């Protein structure tokens, strides 16, 4: 066994006899949900082990070599897509810290209207705004959910704000989990300055302080069950040179592999609740990217996103700037070779942003014969209408800010030069099949519901008919929330972990 920078991050030997461990709770995954749950349980006095499939990559390892970083910290080297009417590429972190290492750091609480629905329609009284308030506060304090240092926003954010201000559209200033974000514009390949407060520098140190540990390169494949109760997990040590296996026995198992991996693991282990809800209710909060050409430099430097325009939140449409490095900017245009090269000469003048739609469609994560996973989701026509409307709003905002041209995600309408073009684009009503989407907000595949017939998890996060098995990640979310989800995931994970901690302690006392 070797230790990484801290003795609590264990890189297991990859050869030898099966690694056998015992603990009170084993947590699978060290991302937003897993790290929060692990730290909370450890602070409740329990012996916690967190198993993470990926490796440990601290700040010093984040290089400027984008393909290398993608290979290191993203699942499948970033080659992941949801199948459907139009394939939707998505990204998942696969490293200690999970997707919090690669995310944009935006921090939003669950909107109150969503929490009201969860309480009233999903019978989840524990998730009321009042009861979640202390969890939100603790999460925000822990991850340093703050406004940007003044001046760090950069012109990509400023142009967006200018357009919204001129139109009188309501903006919301982002809080991001950062300490002195200096606008290096590298969020998606790991923050090279240490500013972004992923779980590596927030929840996990709290786990270590209570004696808990993260075991890296441990891919959980089996959920161990005895007499209908879950009693641990087993799997393989991966990506290192060897074929070693591990078994961890525990009083409870918390799954936090993310909204795609968690249901896959459950289904591969034959864990399907009576209601058949595991893998269903998959929402993805899809987005489309847009770009705008200005006469002056707007790109390159600054924070990923300092503002969101919430003027059309009631229509389920959120707009935001999104600064991305040159290489990602190059894929925003449907082009290649010298034509693209020519356009990229203007890269400093190209602002980038996007539209997120509060989706209604429910996709599904399935496991086909031979354990092959299938992730499906169809953008509905209703949601497509919102994307078109959202694109019209964002183009208007950019033109108002002074853009000369706006680039859309619609195949047959790639470029807009005037408000007339916006009208033509709307009239043309681009189809789902002719639109390029993306998502980073996967949710709800093992959803919590007060009614066992309609959900997979009880209100305290336990899988309905599987004692000892809990889910505390994006999969547990009862439904779509319309905003960036990490704060919601962490607050839910904390709620679940506090309940589980109480339960295990009272059982031990009894």
């Amino acid at each position, binding site marked *: 066994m070797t230790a990484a920078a801290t003795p609590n991050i264990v890189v297991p030997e990859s050869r030898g006899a099966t690694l056998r461990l015992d603990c009170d709770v084993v947590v699978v995954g060290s991302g937003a949900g897993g790290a929060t749950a692990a730290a909370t349980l450890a602070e409740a006095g329990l012996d916690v082990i967190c198993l993470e499939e990926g490796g440990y990559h601290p700040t010093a390892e984040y290089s*400027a070599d*984008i*393909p290398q970083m993608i*290979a*290191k910290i993203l699942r499948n*080297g*970033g*080659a992941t897509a949801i199948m459907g009417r139009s*394939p939707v590429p998505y990204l998942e972190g696969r490293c200690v810290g999970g997707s919090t290492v690669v995310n944009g750091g935006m921090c939003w609480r*669950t*909107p109150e*209207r969503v*929490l009201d629905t969860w309480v009233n329609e999903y019978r989840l009284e524990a998730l009321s705004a009042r009861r*979640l*308030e202390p969890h939100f506060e603790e999460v925000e*304090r822990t991850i340093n959910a*703050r*406004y940007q*240092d*003044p001046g*760090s926003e*950069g012109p990509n954010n400023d142009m967006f704000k200018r357009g919204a201000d001129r*139109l*009188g*559209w*309501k*903006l919301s*200033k982002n809080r991001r989990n950062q300490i*002195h974000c*200096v*606008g290096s514009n590298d969020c998606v390949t790991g923050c*090279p*300055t*240490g*500013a972004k407060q992923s779980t590596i520098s927030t929840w996990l140190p709290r786990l270590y302080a209570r004696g808990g540990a993260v075991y890296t390169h441990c891919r959980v494949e089996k959920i161990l069950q005895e007499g209908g109760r879950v009693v641990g997990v087993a799997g393989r040590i991966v990506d290192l040179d060897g074929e070693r296996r591990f078994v961890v026995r525990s009083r409870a198992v918390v799954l936090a592999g993310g909204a795609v991996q968690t249901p896959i693991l459950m289904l591969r282990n034959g864990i399907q609740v009576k209601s058949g809800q595991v893998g269903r209710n998959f929402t993805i909060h899809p987005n489309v990217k847009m770009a705008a050409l200005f006469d002056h430099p707007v790109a*390159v*430097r*600054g924070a990923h996103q300092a503002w969101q325009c*919430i003027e059309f*939140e009631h229509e389920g449409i959120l707009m935001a700037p999104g600064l991305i490095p*040159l*290489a*990602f900017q*190059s*894929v925003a245009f*449907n*082009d*290649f*070779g010298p034509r*693209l090269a*020519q356009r*990229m*000469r203007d890269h400093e003048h190209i602002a980038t942003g996007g539209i997120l739609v509060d989706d209604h469609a429910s996709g599904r994560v399935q496991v086909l014969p031979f354990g092959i996973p299938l992730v499906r989701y169809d953008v509905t026509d209703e949601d497509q209408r919102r994307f078109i*409307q959202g694109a019209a709003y964002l*183009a208007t905002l950019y033109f108002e800010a002074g853009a000369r041209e706006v680039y859309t995600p619609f*195949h047959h309408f790639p470029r807009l030069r005037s408000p007339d073009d916006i*009208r033509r684009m*709307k009239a043309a009503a681009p189809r789902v*099949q002719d639109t390029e989407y993306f998502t980073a907000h996967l949710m709800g595949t093992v959803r919590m519901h007060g009614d066992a017939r309609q959900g997979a998890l009880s209100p305290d996060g336990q899988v309905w008919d599987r004692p000892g098995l809990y889910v505390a990640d994006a999969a547990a979310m009862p439904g779509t929330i319309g*905003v960036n989800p990490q704060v919601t995931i962490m607050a839910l994970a904390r709620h679940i972990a506090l309940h589980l901690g109480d339960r295990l302690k009272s059982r031990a006392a009894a």
Partner: protein
Amino acid sequence: MPTAFAFTGHTRRIARALVETMVPRWPDFDTDLTDPVLERLERTLDAQPKAVQTLVVAGLWGLEVSGPVFGHGLGRLSAIDRDERDRRLTRIAHHPFPTFRQGILLYQTLVNLCAYSMPEVEAHLGARRREWRKDRQALREVLVQLDEGAKAPQTPAALGSYGHLDPQAFIEFGAAERLRDAANATQTPAPASTDTALDSDGTEPSVEKPKTRKRAATPRRKGP
């Protein structure tokens, strides 16, 4: 750097022909990026699942023999000249049938990501991304040093640059030196926060409070 995944045999010729067509070229840029991008592409694919690698290779063969299918002529992709290849790939990229377009999109995304992250391409376009990272690392180091001993304001207040750095200069190269000089000149201890625009609870008066959000107010000026 040798990689585990590598295009071999004729597949390599097709891959090279595709990459040669898709890499950026400028009249004032002498380097041929084909081979370095091909190598980066192999490195990228090496981290991707076997299914994706197989799909990429199968797709290359599909493109190789696709001329007659699309009515683009009989010649194989790797056998025709670069301009002709460009015309063919562009036509497929704009094909009415989305699946064909998405095939090109996959290659185009991979090649563009590999090419536009190369230091020489970044430098040619004046992106100075690597220098910028170093500059930012230096700036953050100074900011963190200035924090030492000071109590951080409660979230969500911005930490601020403690009055030493003009916000206009924050996003400029060399901000770290300016900040250090300014801090040395004034020798003022770091206050909790000089983010004076904030309310006592740290929120900006002009924007929504970071409490759990209510439904947005009635829209003002409507969009299109």
